C-alpha cells in the first residue's frame, strides 16, 4: 500500500519535471541564432511570403504566448508539425520510438548479462590477471567515444570481414508492425527469417552501445561484491561452513546488485545519449537519427518533441529502478 502511494507520488512528479524540461528546451531552441522560417522559405522569398509562413507556424507571436500554446498542444498529444516535412511530430516520434527503445533494451540486457558475472569474477579473484584485463576493458569502455567505436566496428566486421550488415535495421520491409519492436513482432508472427535479419542488424549497434554501459555495470558490481564480501554476514556464513560458492552467488550477489540496479537508471540515460550518435552511424531509423536530422535542419519543433520524449523515457526508467530497488532490498520497502 505504502509502495503504491510512493509510486503514484513519483508518477505525479513526472508532470512538473517534464514541464521544467519543456520550458528549458523551448527557451534554448528559441534563443539560438537560427531561423527555420528563412530555411523553409528559401533565398528568394518575399517579405509577404515570410510573414505568411511565420503566421502559419505561429512564430509571429511573443515567445511566452508561443510557449503557452505549445504546452497546451503537448497536453493534448500535439507536438506541432515539423517545420521541414510538415508532418505531425507526434506521428514521427511514435513511429520511431520503438526502434530506439528496442536497441536500448537489447544493449542494457547485453551489458547486464555479461557485465554482472564478469564483475563478480573480478571481485572474488581480486588482483588476478582476469581482474586486470577487465579493468583495462572497463576504463576503455568508458573512455572510447561511441561514434568512433561504431565506425571501427563497421570497418572491421562489415567491411573487412563481411560478417555483419553495414547499417540499417532489417533487410526488406521488416515485420508487420504490432508493437514496433521488430524482434518481438517477427517472433510473434513466426517470421524467423526476418527475426534473424533483425538480430543480425542489431549486433553491431547494440554491442557499440552496450560497451560503456557494460563497463559501468561491471565496475559497480565489482565494487558491490567487494563491499559485501567483507561484511559480517559473509564472515558468519563462512564461520558456519556454508560453501563459498553458495555464499557468493546467492547471498553476496543480491546485496551487490542493489548498487548496480541504481546505476542502471543512470546508464539508461547515457545509453540514450549515445544512441543519437550510434543511430546516425548505423543509419538506425530511431529517434536518435531523427534528432540528428532535426538539429541539422533547425527543426525546433522536432527537437523539442524528441527532448521531451527522451526526458520522459529517462524519468520512467529511473522510476522503474526505484520500484525494483524496493523489491531487491526489503529495507527500502519499509
Amino acid at each position, binding site marked *: 500500500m505504502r509502495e503504491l502511494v510512493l509510486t503514484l507520488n513519483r508518477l505525479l512528479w513526472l508532470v512538473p519535471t517534464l514541464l521544467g524540461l519543456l520550458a528549458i528546451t523551448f527557451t534554448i531552441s528559441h534563443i539560438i541564432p537560427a531561423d527555420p522560417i528563412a530555411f523553409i522559405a528559401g533565398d528568394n522569398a518575399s517579405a509577404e511570403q515570410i510573414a505568411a509562413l511565420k503566421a502559419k507556424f505561429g512564430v509571429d507571436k511573443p515567445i511566452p504566448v508561443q510557449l503557452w500554446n505549445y504546452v497546451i498542444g503537448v497536453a493534448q498529444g500535439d507536438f506541432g508539425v515539423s517545420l521541414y516535412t510538415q508532418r505531425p511530430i507526434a506521428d514521427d516520434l511514435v513511429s520511431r520510438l520503438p526502434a530506439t527503445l528496442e536497441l536500448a533494451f537489447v544493449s542494457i540486457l547485453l551489458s547486464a548479462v555479461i557485465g554482472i558475472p564478469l564483475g563478480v569474477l573480478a571481485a572474488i579473484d581480486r588482483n588476478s590477471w582476469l581482474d586486470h584485463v577487465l579493468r583495462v576493458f572497463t576504463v576503455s569502455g568508458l573512455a572510447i567515444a561511441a561514434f568512433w567505436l561504431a565506425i571501427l566496428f563497421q570497418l572491421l566486421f562489415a567491411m573487412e570481414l563481411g560478417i555483419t550488415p553495414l547499417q540499417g535495421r532489417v533487410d526488406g520491409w521488416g515485420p508487420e508492425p504490432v508493437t514496433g519492436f521488430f524482434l518481438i513482432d517477427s517472433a510473434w508472427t513466426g517470421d524467423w527469417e526476418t527475426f534473424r535479419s533483425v538480430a543480425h542488424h542489431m549486433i553491431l549497434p547494440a554491442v557499440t552501445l552496450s560497451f560503456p554501459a557494460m563497463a559501468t555495470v561491471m565496475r559497480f558490481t565489482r565494487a558491490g561484491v567487494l563491499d559485501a564480501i567483507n*561484511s*559480517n*554476514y559473509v*564472515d*558468519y*556464513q*563462512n*564461520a*558456519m*561452513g*556454508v*560453501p563459498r560458492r*553458495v555464499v557468493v552467488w*546467492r*547471498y553476496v550477489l*543480491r*546485496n551487490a546488485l*542493489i548498487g548496480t540496479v541504481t546505476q542502471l537508471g543512470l546508464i539508461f540515460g547515457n545509453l540514450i545519449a549515445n544512441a543519437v550518435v550510434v543511430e546516425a552511424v548505423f543509419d538506425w531509423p530511431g529517434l536518435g537519427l531523427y534528432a540528428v536530422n532535426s538539429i541539422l535542419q533547425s527543426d525546433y519543433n522536432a527537437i523539442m518533441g524528441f527532448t521531451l520524449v527522451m526526458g520522459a523515457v529517462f524519468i520512467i526508467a529511473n522510476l522503474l529502478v526505484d520500484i525494483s530497488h524496493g523489491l*531487491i*532490498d*526489503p*529495507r527500502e520497502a519499509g
Partner: protein
Amino acid sequence: MDDLLTVTDLEVGFQTDRGLARVLDSVNFHVGRGEIVGLVGESGCGKTTLARAILGVLPAISARISSGVIDFDGRNLLAEDPQGLATEVRGRQITFVPQDPFSSFNPVFTIGAQIDELMKWKSPDSEPAAAARFYPRARRRSDRARVLELLRTVQLPDPEGILKKYPHEVSGGQRQRLMIAMALLPEPKLIIADEPTTALDVTIQAQILKLLKRLAAGRGVSVLFTTHDLGTAYEICDRITVMYAGQEVESAPSDDFFAAPRHPYTKRLLESLPSREHGISGIPGQIPALIDPPSGCRFHPRCTSASERCAALRPGVTEAGPAHRIRCHHPVEAVREAAS
C-alpha cells in the same frame, strides 16, 4: 583428562605493512567436554584470533600459523584439508555465535531463508559429505519442525512469524537469540561465542548469557566464550583463561580465579575493577605493540614482581592448584581472602 579441545603451543602472526605482528605467542588452551570456558583479555590480546584459528577462518591473505596443534575431538585441525573442515567440522561440530547479531544477518533475505540455508547444509540429519545440491523435501519438513522447536526453546515469541521477517524487523535481543538457536541447531560439540553480548543492552546481556548457559549445559555442549568483561565471564563460565598481549597467563576454575588469582597481571586486572573502596584504578604502562613485543613474559615491563629471568625466558605452564594453571616465574602468593 579428556578434553574436547586442546590447543598446544599455537603461534599465529599477521603480516602487516610494518612487519609481522606476533599475535599468538605459543598459546596453550583447552576446553573440557560440556565446559563453558571464558577467554578474557583486553582488546588486541589475541582472544578473537585464537577463536578464529580454532574455527579455521583466519584471513588467508595476512594470517600465518607457524606452529602448534589444535586438537579437537581427536583430530588435529591444523593438519587437515580446509575444504573438508568447512564441510565436516565448521557449522556441524563447531558452531559460531558472532559479536554483532545485526550485521551477521544478511539484510536482504528473510530470517527463515537464512536458517533454511544453514539447515540445508548443516542439519544434524544430513550427511556432511553429500553436497546438498538440493534439499530433500522430507528433511526440509523435519528440519523446519526442529527449527520451530528450538526457536521456542530460546523463548522467541511467534516463531512462525519471525521466520517470515527480515533481520531489521526484529529486536537486537531477538536477533542474538536467533543466533544462539542457529548455533545449537546443528547439534555441535563446541560453540564459539565471540563477545556475543557486546552489542546488546546491559539488561538484555544477562538474559542472553543465562540462556546460553542453560541451553549449553542442558545439552552438554562446550562453549568457548570470549569477552573483555570479567563480570560477564563470571556470570556464565566454569573456567576462565586470561590472555595478555598474545600470551595466555592464567587459567582457573571461576571461583578459584576470582578468589585467588596467582598471576600478577590477573591480580592487577581484578584490582582494577571499579569498586567502592578504591574507585577506578588502572595498571600503569601500556599494552605492548605486537610487531616488536617484549621478550620473555610480555607482561614483565609492567609487572612489579618482574626479574631478569622474566625478560629472558617465558615461563612454562605450572600447576598452581587443581585445574589451576599459570605461566609465571613469580606467582602471587595464594592467600585466600580473609573472611570479609
